[in-house]
């Protein structure tokens, strides 16, 4: 058994019935990026880096952080979240892999669907100002958001289920380093050659930012479907990197699930 409908329903209800969570998702997931897009279109400006972040993988992570954190691990069995009713819902114990896979699929679908909807709304807004997105482009956007949600959900599940303090610190630091790599302005500043301490400072900053991007590619790799479909040269490395990391996170999450979560609150 790989999927449990009761856990799926409970997870959806926990994620989507909290007004504060929904308000946050509505603001950061829809109002801010679509507002930025409309303002840019109205003034004839091109998309900003912040907009690209909020409509890409960073946007998916922002939506999922609030909507989906606390949906696995001990927090699910706490009173006030419906945890006290859970033992009554199950007539038999469930396997650890069933628990992890159900949670992962549910969280990925919630995060991916919201991010894909946001991307579609951005495309519709652009259409009224002369921007066209091809059918291949729209298809790519939707698939990319679900893929982003899938790997982020696996990473989040692992960090929620593994309670070891050292692992918690490493996962938080890795997330912030990944975020730093995403916020690097993708430009080089024009100007003459600089020397001395200024050059040293610039080189050190460049190394730091390049390292954060490399580490980000290592811990949360992505697949650019739009480029992959429209490229004459196919590289198998991005899909292999993505699925190897995804499977590793899920395997570690299953291993990290303890008896308490495994029996979903029952003794």
């Amino acid at each position, binding site marked *: 058994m790989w999927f449990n409908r009761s856990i799926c329903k409970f997870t959806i209800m926990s994620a989507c019935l909290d007004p504060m969570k929904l308000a946050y998702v509505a603001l950061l997931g829809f109002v801010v990026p679509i507002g930025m897009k409309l303002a840019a279109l109205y003034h004839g400006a091109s998309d900003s880096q912040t907009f690209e972040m909020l409509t890409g993988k960073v946007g998916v992570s922002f939506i999922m952080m609030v909507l989906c954190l606390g949906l696995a691990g001990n927090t699910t069995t706490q009173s006030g979240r419906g945890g006290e009713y859970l033992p009554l819902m199950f007539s038999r114990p469930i396997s*650890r892999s069933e628990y992890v896979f159900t949670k992962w699929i549910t969280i990925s679908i919630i995060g991916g669907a919201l991010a894909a909807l946001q991307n579609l709304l951005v495309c519709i807004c652009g259409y009224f100002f002369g921007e066209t997105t091809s059918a291949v482009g729209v298809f790519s956007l939707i698939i990319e958001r679900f893929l982003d949600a899938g790997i982020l959900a696996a990473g989040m599940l692992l960090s929620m289920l593994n309670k070891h303090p050292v692992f918690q610190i490493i996962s938080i630091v890795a997330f912030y380093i990944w975020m730093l790599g995403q916020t690097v302005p993708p430009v*080089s500043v*024009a100007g003459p*050659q600089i020397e001395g301490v200024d050059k040293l400072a610039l080189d050190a900053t460049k190394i730091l930012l390049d390292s954060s991007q490399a580490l980000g590619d290592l811990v949360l790799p992505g697949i650019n479907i739009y480029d992959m479909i429209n490229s004459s040269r196919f590289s198998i490395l991005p899909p*292999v990197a993505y699925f190897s990391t995804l499977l590793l996170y*899920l395997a570690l999450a299953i291993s990290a699930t303890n008896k308490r979560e*495994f029996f979903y609150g029952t003794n």
Partner: protein
Amino acid sequence: MVQTDSPALADNTSEAANVKDYRLTATPKVFLIVAAALIILRVGLTVNEFVNPAAAAASVQWKNAQDFAGSSEPEIVKNSGKKLILYEFYADWCTPCTRLERDVMTNDEIRSTIEKNFVCIRVTDRLKEDGKNARLVADLQKRYRVFAFPTVVAVGLDGESKGTLVGNSSSMAVYRFVSRIINQNK
């Protein structure tokens, strides 16, 4: 566990329960094997790509601004054959520029759209290497207020800027930018 008076049956039941418990708590072996195989493949492919970098895919065919030396910008616009002009402000040492070229300009949909609708001119900055830029390069940078590389500027038939895109944007952002300029200047 099932209660029974028979010691033999009790042992069997206990063993069965243990087996069932193991299945519930175990990590699926197939899953672990596939994950390990993919990780090994990933390491191998990464090393291979580092040792034997793949040949670059076909990119946008840029004309070099140096080829227009002696011409002024109005003359370039006049000779564009009723096409829009797309300037790419570039520098050889600029990593985001090479990434834009490698990841975005090799996208077939973007490449064909740009080549069909624009006269593509690359304006390469040589300030760091030579200490100064050619006259036309300096004039274009000043006119379009270029402060960072890569910067892509679309210019209409009237010689006015129709849009600017700064930085190594995603393929989708570049396609949206280009399509908006084309549709608004039909």
